[in-house]
């Protein structure tokens, strides 16, 4: 019975709204990313906001999940960013997710799923039918999530080398 209660708790989905990022969200996004990665990257996130969230740019999406309502500065539960990329080594246009973070206390409540569904809808509206991402092999959290959402290994192989 205890495990069922835990399972029910994991499945419980609190009210949630997914919307485009606002300038007032940026400080929370920077703080959330720093808590999760252990690395503060304010300049990076300001740049991402400018290019993906500052104004509505076709094929670029920067979304946040927050409790519903119009509170002046609601807590951010998570965010996702991506864009439509085309013709990289022959790859037909597809949606690329390059950032996804969920507040640790809000995990297992459907926040990540809601964010992924929202950006999937944006990608479909932008005219693409496939979505990709790139995750480190040791990034168990994101790998388990994306696999659980039905993503599988694609036909491209990521390569790299140290620059001498």
């Amino acid at each position: 019975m205890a495990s069922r209660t835990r399972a029910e708790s994991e499945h419980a989905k609190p009210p949630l709204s997914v919307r485009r990022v606002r300038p007032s969200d940026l400080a929370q996004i920077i703080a959330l990313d720093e808590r999760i990665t252990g690395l503060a990257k304010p300049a990076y996130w300001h740049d991402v906001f400018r290019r993906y969230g500052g104004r509505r740019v076709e094929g670029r999406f920067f979304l946040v999940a927050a409790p519903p309502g119009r509170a002046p500065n609601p807590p951010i539960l998570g965010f996702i960013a991506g864009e439509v990329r085309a013709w990289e080594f022959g790859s037909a246009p597809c949606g690329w997710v390059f950032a996804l973070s969920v507040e640790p206390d809000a995990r297992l409540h459907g926040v990540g799923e809601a964010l992924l569904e929202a950006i999937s809808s944006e990608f479909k509206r932008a005219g693409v039918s496939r979505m990709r991402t790139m995750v480190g092999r040791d990034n168990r959290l994101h790998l388990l999530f994306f696999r659980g959402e039905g993503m599988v290994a694609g036909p491209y192989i990521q390569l790299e080398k140290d620059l001498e």
Partner: protein
Amino acid sequence: MRLQIASRLAIFALLELAASPGRQVSVAEIGEKYGVSSHHLAKVMNALGRAGLVRAVRGAGGGYHFSGNARRITLLDVISLFENLESGNVEVGATGQATDEARATGQATDEARALGGVLAEIDDAVRATLGSITIATLLRIVERGRGGRTSAAPADQRREDPPPE
């Protein structure tokens, strides 16, 4: 890659049990579906029981039920109970030097190390893949496969997306 039979049977058994967590399933029932002897399967179930993934129910109508968390247990967790997935690079002894056997079989050469680097790349990809797929995810893949095979059903009756967890 090929998995050992025990690993495959363990995954099949966990899928059967996790698909209906409240139900007890006998070894004979699982064995019949996958065409394996109860004797072979019993050894696998014992190992899964020792790992805490299944629980045996004794007596009439007994069998096994799933006692793990399907959203947490990965294929790598299960397979690692039965086999070592490393492809085997240069064998190194306690002193950090290549062992005599490794030298005798050419494994201590630069060429063997280069080949070992390539094989390690493959090992890493295999482990990352198996470590990212849970029993729950594999059950969803099974369901999607069933959906694809019954595509004669009207499109509006087909489930495109996995059920919400």
